[in-house]
């Protein structure tokens, strides 16, 4: 009982007590006592040494998103800490539970511009759910317990624990109590049955209802409930980018993806529905387009765990303040069986039009077309991918092409940087996703630009033998910017062409196999080899730089103003 241990050991034992068996990180001066203690804990905690702290935090995000567990990151002070700032922001905006431990200089050196000192708490507060500096070893255990509680409950998010050297090195006794309560923090709202009844009445009265499913569905494991409710009341389900895979792509009620590059039917019908049922989504501007012309004809019912999202972007008519799973289970018995066949047929009509006017030619271009486009590559990879594969994307055209064309059969199957749109997210997130779901195939689609932002993580793949399938959709351009330059800036390609290295030679330097794909007849055999191969594999696919992602709602336009190509609107 009187045993005295260092703060660093408290941290290690605390991580074990929280059930952590994997952490992502990078050592350095101000966190060395922790790394030294980690050396004694390697049988219970596997540390993944990435090649950059940004890689560590994005890997932890990928890990958390597919496993439902809290991702843990350990980095040093100063540059180590500032290198996780992008990932913290990304995790905050995309509601990903993380506990990030940063080293910090000694208490006596705080505020003196000491070597590798930075005001991490000041930096982290606006971009985290909670950030706290720890100065004494006895404060580590309660702070760590609270960190896991805050990160993983309510609307999840990242937490920073800034551990001074004094806290790491000082002695204290071991005592650990998991946190179940923080005064003033109410992660689980008390369900208000009045709200539920009002919501059910709205749903029962609706003739043209549509469900908008966001990531809140996956975060509360409500996928099956959502599907059952949609089936009972016969309601088409559209997904946000992060909501994808809440319902299988092949489900008859799946209406497609919402947003700027989403599907025609749900975007168009947003302005035709009489009721929008938003579940765990937040009406991001990429989903709504011009908010003054968004669903003005419809009633809006908003189900969310975060009360600050209500009426933030879009005025709602009714709200249920609860997590998606609780709200949907309460709604289920109150919602009548219904049929909305003519409304559903309108979705099918728009989908068929999108298929014939946009998708068919993209996925299956005429034989005479010499160059590959992203849609056909994603389509082909998705068709060959094993059951239950996870899609990881980077940001840009590759992200939209893969979100549009990848077919999902299992829940929690998409990992992408939604709100922040962080280029360079893809490769490290794919590594983390594979570690979080080792039995599932992980397919990464990335652009040549984004890939080069974090390609040092090929070293991590090499060191840990991580089996990720990497498809570089290589157009030798910053494609997404190029598309905007084409459409809105008179084809002035300012700073978007890129001279790229030989990616396959680079892969080989990391002992990763791969091949170039130049043309259509090379594509299928290459994809087959990629999936047949045990271990990581890279396809560097040469893509037509002029090819664009359509449909597209131009920025600032209403959600049902949909370009089908450069010249034609829906």
């Amino acid at each position, binding site marked *: 009982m009187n045993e005295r241990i260092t703060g660093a050991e408290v941290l290690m034992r605390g991580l074990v007590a929280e059930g952590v068996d994997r952490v992502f990180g990078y050592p350095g001066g101000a966190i060395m006592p922790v790394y030294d203690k980690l050396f004694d804990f390697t049988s219970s905690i596997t540390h993944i040494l990435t090649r950059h702290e940004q890689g560590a935090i994005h890997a932890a995000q990928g890990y958390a998103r597919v496993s439902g567990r809290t991702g843990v990151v350990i980095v040093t002070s100063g540059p180590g800490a500032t290198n996780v700032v992008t990932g913290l922001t990304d995790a905050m905006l995309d509601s990903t539970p993380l506990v990030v431990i940063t080293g910090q200089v000694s208490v006596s050196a705080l505020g003196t511009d000491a070597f590798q000192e930075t005001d991490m708490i000041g930096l982290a*507060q606006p971009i985290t759910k909670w950030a706290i500096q720890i100065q004494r070893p006895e404060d580590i255990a309660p702070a760590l317990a609270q960190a896991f509680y805050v990160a993983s409950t309510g609307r999840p998010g990242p937490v920073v624990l800034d551990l001074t050297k004094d806290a790491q090195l000082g002695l204290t006794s071991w005592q650990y109590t998991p946190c*179940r309560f923080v005064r003033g923090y109410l992660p689980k709202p008390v369900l208000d049955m009045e709200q539920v009844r009002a919501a059910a009445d709205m749903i029962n009265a609706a003739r043209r209802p549509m469900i908008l499913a966001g990531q809140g569905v996956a975060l509360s494991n409500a996928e099956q409930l959502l599907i059952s409710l949609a089936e009972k009341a016969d309601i088409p389900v559209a997904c946000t980018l992060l909501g994808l895979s809440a319902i299988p792509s092949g489900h008859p009620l799946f209406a497609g993806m919402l947003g700027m590059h989403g599907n025609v039917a749900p975007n168009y019908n947003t302005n035709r529905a009489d009721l929008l049922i938003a579940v765990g989504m937040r009406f991001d501007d990429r989903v709504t387009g011009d908010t003054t012309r968004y669903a003005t004809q419809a009633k809006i019912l908003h189900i969310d765990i975060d009360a600050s999202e209500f009426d933030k972007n879009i005025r709602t008519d009714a709200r249920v303040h609860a997590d998606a799973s609780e709200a949907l289970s309460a709604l289920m018995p109150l919602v009548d069986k219904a049929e909305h066949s003519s409304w559903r047929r309108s979705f099918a009509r728009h989908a068929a039009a999108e298929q014939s006017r946009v998708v068919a030619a993209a996925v299956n271009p005429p034989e005479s077309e010499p160059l590959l486009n992203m849609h056909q590559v994603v389509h082909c990879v998705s068709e060959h991918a094993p059951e239950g594969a996870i899609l990881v994307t980077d940001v840009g055209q590759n992200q939209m092409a893969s979100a549009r064309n990848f077919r999902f059969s299992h829940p929690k199957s998409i990992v992408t940087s939604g709100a922040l749109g962080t280029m360079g997210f893809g490769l490290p997130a794919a590594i983390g996703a594979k570690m979080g779901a080792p039995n599932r195939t992980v397919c990464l689609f990335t652009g040549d630009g984004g890939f080069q932002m974090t390609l040092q993580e090929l070293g991590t793949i090499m060191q840990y033998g991580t089996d990720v399938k990497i498809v570089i959709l290589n157009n030798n351009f910053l494609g997404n910017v190029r598309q905007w330059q084409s459409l809105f800036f008179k084809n002035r390609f300012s700073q978007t062409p890129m001279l790229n290295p030989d990616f396959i030679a680079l892969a080989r330097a990391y002992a990763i196999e791969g091949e170039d794909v130049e043309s259509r007849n090379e594509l299928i055999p290459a994809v087959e080899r990629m999936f047949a191969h045990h271990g990581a594999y890279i396809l560097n696919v040469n893509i037509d730089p002029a090819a664009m992602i359509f449909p597209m709602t131009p920025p600032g336009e209403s959600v049902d103003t949909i370009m089908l190509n450069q010249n034609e609107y829906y």
Partner: protein
Amino acid sequence: MQQTCLYTVTVFTDDQVGLLNQVSIVFTRRRQNIESLSASPTSIPGVSKFTFTCWSTLRMMEQVVKQIEKRVGVLKAFLHTDDDIVYQNIALYKVPTRSLVDNHVVEKILRRHNARILEITEAYTVIEKTGHNDETRALFEELMQYGLTQYVRSGRVAVTKDAAEHFTAFLEEQRRLEQSQADAAANSNDN
């Protein structure tokens, strides 16, 4: 466009370093100019109170309050208009003594404004006035004629008019919640 008016936001927090910064950046991020601010302990140990005033719209302030409440360490935030609260500011004015004496205005000013003198030296006089903004402002304007050299006004302090004590009730509720969580944890350990 919604109407703007002066709102008072009171925020109860744990007594912890850095919370004032976290709360005030919620205003600044939404480009809301904080008109005044005061921070103080409360009658409850370990609980601090911040009082902000801000010209804004109801819709904006409702969102700001919800965002403030999301911060861990913030216990509860309330939004008020002037009708809901009893409030005061305090203002200090430094004026050259000679100009007050020469003009024979000291008594008139003190009576009319219900102000008082805190210190008199040969060189200067310090006058104190508590009241609402328009009242402290009126004295400011009058003293400008007599060569006012310094003026400072505190942030607003306010208490609610409501007979019910919502924050105390909230704390009670939190204590009950904490106890029931602890009981649940103890029970699950037994099994």
